[in-house]
């Protein structure tokens, strides 16, 4: 049973516009959420995180929103750039961050 879900396998956005990637989770014990970006033939690289005590965290063009009541988080990229084209994974953890549960990923394509 997958505890972290990304229901959109792909997303296509025009350069300069906003990209919104969504993620849902089922385990209310998760207290730390992360987004990773992955290029082909590379391991995932950390992008941004948010603790369950917050509902928003911003880092440059990237903002993560957390809605605990809906068990939903989203990643906003504004403005989107062609270099953002990659697979994005959301992840969640509990138990002092020892284990990470990943979604299946969303492939973002930013068109020039």
């Amino acid at each position, binding site marked *: 049973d997958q505890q972290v879900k990304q229901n959109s396998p792909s997303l296509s956005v025009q350069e300069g516009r906003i990209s919104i990637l969504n993620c849902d989770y089922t385990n209310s014990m998760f207290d730390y959420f992360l987004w990773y970006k992955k290029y082909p033939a590379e391991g995932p690289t950390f992008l941004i995180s948010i603790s369950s005590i917050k509902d928003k965290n911003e880092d440059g063009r990237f903002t993560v929103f957390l809605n605990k009541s809906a068990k939903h988080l989203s990643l906003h990229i504004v403005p989107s750039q062609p270099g953002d084209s990659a697979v994005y994974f959301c992840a969640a953890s509990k138990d002092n*961050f020892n284990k990470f549960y990943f979604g299946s990923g969303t492939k973002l394509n930013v068109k020039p």
Partner: protein
Amino acid sequence: SAVISQKPSRDICQRGTSLTIQCQVDSQVTMMFWYRQQPGQSLTLIATANQGSEATYESGFVIDKFPISRPNLTFSTLTVSNMSPEDSSIYLCSVVGQPNTEAFFGQGTRLTVV
């Protein structure tokens, strides 16, 4: 941050054989993990590599199939034993440094079993 070197980056293996994947970290880390990413799937945790003791395996993964070693705080190996085509995946080493921080990943090992 931690720099993780994983070897080999890819391999094609015959069914029935075994492959050992190495993970070297540039600094001492407490927590090391092994993940698998099957085609089109999420990253799935195989086990936690414990320094000086047996690895802790997740449900669905067993030591006989995925023996893990961790002789020190900077190195671990994962062996995929008696391989079948279903083992074709990307295998990733991951480390977590301090609490309340993110996990870092190696570049992965793309394994194809024929």
